[in-house]
């Protein structure tokens, strides 16, 4: 699974430019799906059909993980060939300093900063620029509207893994691995790899409308409270998949939450509850689709989210796959 994770995180895919990521996923699921389609917004919708089982209610279940990552977009090219940019999604300016970004054609740029007047001044994005190493404007090869994202190699530290875009390629990897491991299920399960989550859960909004699920589980990253002087949050790396209770955008459906808890307890998997004061996931869009969807969220605890070096625990990842497999293999009653 680590190879898949490495490939997924190193692939380029700022919001609205998810094609390369989608190709990696399509390749990895070949032969394991009953139906594969791509909708108008670029969501990859993969159906694994359920086997009718006597006495078991077949449910229509949607799993969602987003393919897009945060990035930057060129807003102006000056006479000397320096690029001004704005953010795609929640980019935290300090993480940009000293970083390199990559454009869709693989070309690299480095982030520079205007003269610092006050030494303790917080770095601002409008005081930064991208330098693509061009001697003049004529050789920049970039235009307004070009998107770029962080570039950083995947690193395997053994127990812990480090990469850019774990948000939410780790969710994509968990979904792929779950599909590959799911021998039979009594349910129709839609594995949906969504687009444009970082700019307002856009892909989940439309794919949920199209799929029309009864039950949904979004798989995404969450923050932790286990680093020095971190904000109060009872989520730690390595303590198991986090079962969401609430974030800024939604309250998890109690039935789905309990389904996750009872499955984890039955399989003796570690888990923790998550209350997140900032951010939300595809779950919030799916929840209010049409006449409402019973929606929960399975979160992978992740440190340094939205930086080029996000960190997850490999056991948390493996346990997340086992938890989903356990949930999908059995009847559901919410």
């Amino acid at each position, binding site marked *: 699974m680590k190879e898949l994770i490495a490939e997924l995180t190193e692939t380029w895919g700022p919001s609205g430019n998810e094609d390369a990521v989608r190709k990696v996923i399509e390749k990895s699921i070949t032969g394991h799906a009953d139906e594969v389609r791509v909708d108008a917004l670029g969501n990859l919708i993969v159906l694994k059909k359920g086997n009718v089982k006597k006495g078991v209610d077949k449910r229509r279940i949607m799993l969602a993980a987003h393919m897009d990552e945060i990035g930057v977009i060129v807003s102006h090219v000056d006479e000397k060939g320096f690029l001004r940019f704005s953010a795609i999604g929640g980019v935290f300016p300090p993480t940009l300093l000293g970083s390199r970004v990559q454009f869709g054609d693989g070309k690299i740029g480095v982030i520079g900063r205007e003269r610092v007047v006050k030494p303790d001044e917080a770095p601002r994005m409008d005081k930064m620029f991208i330098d693509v190493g061009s001697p003049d404007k004529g050789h920049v090869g970039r235009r307004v509207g070009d998107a770029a994202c962080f570039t950083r190699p995947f690193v395997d530290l053994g127990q812990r893994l480090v990469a850019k875009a774990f948000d939410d390629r780790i969710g994509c990897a968990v979904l792929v691995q779950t599909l590959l491991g799911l021998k039979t299920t009594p349910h129709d399960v839609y594995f949906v790899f969504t687009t444009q989550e970082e700019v307002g859960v856009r892909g989940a909004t439309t794919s949920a409308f199209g799929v029309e699920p*009864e039950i949904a589980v979004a798989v995404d990253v969450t923050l932790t409270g286990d680093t020095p002087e971190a904000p109060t949050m*009872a989520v730690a790396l390595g303590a198991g998949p986090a079962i969401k209770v609430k974030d800024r955008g939604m309250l998890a459906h109690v039935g789905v939450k309990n389904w996750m808890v009872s499955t984890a307890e039955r399989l003796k998997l570690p888990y923790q*509850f998550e*209350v997140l004061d900032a951010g939300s996931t595809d779950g919030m869009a799916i929840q209010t689709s049409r006449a*409402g*969807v019973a929606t929960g969220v399975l979160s992978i605890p992740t440190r340094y989210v939205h930086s080029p070096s996000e960190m997850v625990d490999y056991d948390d990842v493996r346990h997340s796959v086992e938890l989903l497999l356990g949930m999908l293999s059995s009847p559901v009653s919410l």
Partner: protein
Amino acid sequence: MQIKDFMKQITEASGVSGYEGGVRELVRTELAAYSDEVRTDTLGSLIALKRGQRPDDVPQRSIMLAGHMDEIGLLVTKLEKGYLRFSTVGGFDLRVLLGQEVIVHGRRDFPGVIGTRPPHVLGPEDRDQVVPLDRLFIDVGLTEVELGKNIRVGDIVSLRREFTELAGGLVAGKAFDDRAAVACIDQCLQYLAGLRHTWDVYAVATVQEETGLKGALTSAFGIDPDIGVAIDVGHGNMLGVSEVDTVNVGGGPAIGFGPNIHPALYEQLTATASRYEISHQIDPIPGASGTDAWAMQVVREGIPTALISIPLRYMHTTVETISLKDIERIGRLLALFIAGLTEESAEQLGLAQQSSAT
């Protein structure tokens, strides 16, 4: 049930956003007595249908009434040395949390109190400040070990407050935002029992309003009504707040007007109030109303929507104060308005013509 008894029953019950189960059963029992069928949708909104009586040549039309039954609350974020750290569900006013009694919904319900450091041990700067959330904690009295066995991160906490009758027909308590609207809807159904109406009435106690108008959005999609009326609370007159920003407690329904409200529906409601001499007030709302009406208006292809506000003092505290008379008037206004709905009203609202075939 009488307004006062029903208000006492539902406002003393717990029903924090996303966890409305307790109060929902009370509402179900009450609304079932005055409607034809009652169901709960996926997100938990309670939908009571009272069918209209219509001749065969009249097309089927429906109106949705929405009042939210969820209340703001708290939830446990961390267990720390025998105390509970917490966060808010919905927009709680931190200034009023200190010293409140709560119920922590753990493995069982535990009464608790919200404590903080006493003034004697505070420095002068801290003493003059609103206590921030990260300095507040809940004490249920359990030891650290027992606490860990009984309460977990994510457990919901509701505020505890008895319903109190003040003088002059006013009452005070918690969760009047927006269970007072559920009481209005109940009153409406009771009045309708004695009136003839052709439109179907969907009386909906919505969920998760305080966390993003979610129940109204999804229940309106499911019901697909011709028109929608949300009932919510509006700031009542109180000392220190400008008259411009408030409506009068005891002054009757505050009928909303503005971009969130369909102008013809506003006209029909005010005309009904005038015709039946129901004292009412106009409540101009220049933009987002922040109520279920805001969500309902843009469901599917759009729903002509109105908003009626119950004048209420001290919003989002546990001593929200209203006049019972206003609830009675809103219930009566809604019932008379519904009884007066015809194909002509639909036409005024620009609704597509429907064939009378059933």
